[in-house]
């Protein structure tokens, strides 16, 4: 081995060993990074960027501000007590006439969220304003459509004059801005989101609990039975897992409806009278039953994989040392299954809170969970701002739960298999 005067160790090429090592380390690191690079890029491009883009929509009101910049400048000075002046009418007239068809279409959709009717008013105006050649505009505009003379329509614009808004978030919890941008409650007949949030969380928590109660013994049985039986049982768990979601949902309808299998068996057995058949579907009961069955495998599988690794000798030792079976189970066995409980619980809860097809089909009047409203606004009203706000709240709820979980149990205690 070579050595320099300073006592550094050299490789055969005469480069100091430290430098050479660092170099080869760097190449290795680079290689490792290059290996994960495609995946990282994939996640950033298909997951992180779209999520951020969607979330920013929840406060973004720039689009409408690019269509009516001058009108909104004047609007800020308006007293909002009597109809605006000719100046504001003339400005909005010019901006409607000169706006590009697509931009004005989007703007009218946005305006319609704060007051129903703006959409058709703007579209009609865009068509008919071409005939108006010169001012004064106020009367001519009101002649085209009398809604231009209604102060409520003008007042509704108040919440959009800033390029950023919390209006969508307020909407997502049954609040709104009034024309002076003060926060007020929605009129009672339109309050629906808080109730939906409550219903969604309640159903998700209950489904998670039911899955745990049903899944725990099954997983325990699977983990302790001899292989040839447990394999058979495992197929019973997995078979529904592989069956189409819709097939399972519709099967539940057939089983639970009034003249369905379950009620008919009870009537046949004389448990209930024919005229007292139970309403088990098209309500919350139906939603809970169907969702629990559909999500059960997501609880059983993580629990099973954790229980499988617990040596049976621990329980035997506990019993041997004089613990009551219940006590031994509670003190020795259960704590070891916590990682499985957490993984299964989180998995089921996350899936349940975003569910909407099954509840919609079996839930009747109760079937519209928050996922339904996100899908509805995404497709029907094109109110993507509200979708984004609802989605953001959902994400925050999940992250909060995750944080609380991490504080109480510790995230290292989670095990998927």
């Amino acid at each position, binding site marked *: 081995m070579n050595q320099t005067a300073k006592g550094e160790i050299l490789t055969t090429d005469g480069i100091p060993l430290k430098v050479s090592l660092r170099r080869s380390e760097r190449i290795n690191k680079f290689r490792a990074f290059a290996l994960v690079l495609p995946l990282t890029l994939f996640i950033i491009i298909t997951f992180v960027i779209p999520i951020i883009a969607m979330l920013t929509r929840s406060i973004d009101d720039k689009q409408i501000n690019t269509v009516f910049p001058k009108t909104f400048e004047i609007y800020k000075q308006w007293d909002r007590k009597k109809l605006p002046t000719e100046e504001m009418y003339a400005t909005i007239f010019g901006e409607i006439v000169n706006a590009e*068809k697509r931009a004005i279409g989007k703007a009218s959709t946005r305006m319609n969220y704060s007051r129903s*009717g703006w*959409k058709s008013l703007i579209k009609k105006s865009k068509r008919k304003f071409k005939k108006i050649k010169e001012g004064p505009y106020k009367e001519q505009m009101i002649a085209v459509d009398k809604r231009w003379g209604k102060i409520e329509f003008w007042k509704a614009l108040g919440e959009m004059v800033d390029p950023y808004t919390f209006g969508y978030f307020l909407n997502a919890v049954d609040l709104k801005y009034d024309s002076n941008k003060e926060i007020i409650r929605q009129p009672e007949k339109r309050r*629906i989101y808080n109730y939906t949030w409550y219903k969604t969380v309640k159903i998700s928590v209950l489904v998670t609990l039911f899955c745990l109660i049903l899944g725990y013994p099954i997983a325990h049985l699977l983990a302790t039975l001899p292989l040839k039986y447990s394999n058979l049982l495992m197929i019973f768990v997995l078979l529904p897992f592989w069956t189409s979601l819709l097939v399972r949902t519709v099967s539940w309808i057939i089983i639970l409806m*009034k003249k369905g299998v379950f009620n008919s068996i009870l009537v046949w057995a004389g448990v209930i009278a024919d005229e007292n058949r139970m309403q088990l579907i098209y309500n919350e009961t139906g939603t809970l039953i169907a969702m629990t069955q559909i999500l059960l495998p997501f609880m059983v599988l993580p629990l099973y994989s954790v229980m499988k690794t617990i040596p049976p000798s621990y329980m035997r030792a506990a019993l041997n040392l004089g613990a009551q079976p219940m006590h031994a189970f509670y003190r020795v066995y259960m704590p070891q299954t916590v990682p499985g409980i957490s993984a299964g619980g989180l998995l089921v809860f996350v899936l349940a809170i975003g569910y909407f097809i099954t509840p919609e089909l079996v839930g009747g009047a109760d079937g519209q969970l928050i996922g339904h409203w996100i899908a509805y606004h995404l497709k*029907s*009203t094109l109110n993507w701002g509200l979708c984004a706000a609802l989605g953001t709240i959902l994400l925050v709820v999940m992250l909060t739960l995750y944080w609380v979980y991490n504080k109480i149990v510790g995230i290292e205690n989670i095990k998927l298999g």
Partner: protein
Amino acid sequence: MIKTIKVALLALIGLAFTATAYADFTFVSWGGAYTMSQQKGYIDTWGPVKNGTTKVSVENYNGGLGEVKAQVESGNVTWDVVDILPVDAINGCDEGLLEELDFSSWEKAPNGDSFLESIPDNGTGVGGTISPCAAPQIWWTYVIIYDPKAFPEKKPKKMKDFFDVKKFPGKRGVHTWPQAVLEMALVADGVKPSKVNEVLQGEGGPDRAFAKLEDLKGHVVHWSAGAQPLELVSSGEVVMSIVYNGRAGAAILSEGASFDYVWEGQVLDGDWIAIPKGSKNKAEAIEFLKHATTCASQAEQARYITYGPMRSCGLDVIKKGEPWFHNGIAVLPHMPNTKKRLKKSILTDPVWWADHNAELKEQWAAWMAGNK
């Protein structure tokens, strides 16, 4: 290895090209029995298809202008004819996404009426076309059906019977969105069908409808997919339900189900066919639309589905040819747009609903939540 991949890729690209070369004419609709009726009614009978010069490929979509918009704006229009709802026909034409049509040379009705005159108004407020881009297709309705066995003596005849749970006890099937329900509630409240839109759109109109809906509180089972209400009625879960009339017609005519209709206050809506702006086969597409809207084609389609042809001459052909349905059963009793029925129908107002959709859907959801 790399060479194999190259060869495979080239082959794939080649395949893609041949595939596009074959599909030289694209017709887009909603799928299922409805698309089947279009296929048999006027695609298979179109000259260029019969003599093999053109192959029409049929695609499904879920409505809305999204795809059309994307194609027109990117300049790569692959659809030639699309089946759309009134609101999209109006907006699409306004926004320049659809080709405008000149109907002057299109087929006249046998009685000498011009093409547009042969699309009758009959009190619905819409005669001719709703937009210069839209060629007529069919009328469909939300209608009430009931199980005759549930009412052995007196049968429900009027819309107010649907809202009368004392006279006609039992649960009602209602969909989970407010469209059509509010119009029906107003009819039950005594508004004439021809006046319903005026009342609904006037001051306090929706609130009046919601007040009438209180009569149904606790007696409603909600459905969300078109096949559900038939299942609800035939299984006895409900005694009456709002359904799409085409679904009910199919169940009765093809499967022998024993439902009866209540023909009052049904809410009518149309389907139109149009050409996306910049279609590569525009001339051919216009010829296709002309063929699809002849009296004969309109009638032919009704052999396979009970939606009503928009042109009255289509109905005339059916009248003469009854029993018209493909399996030899009379079809007119199931049609929503005979003259008599149109007078008792309400034509849904797509523009007003586009304005009030979100607001009323929220109010409707709040009503459903309180209705248990």
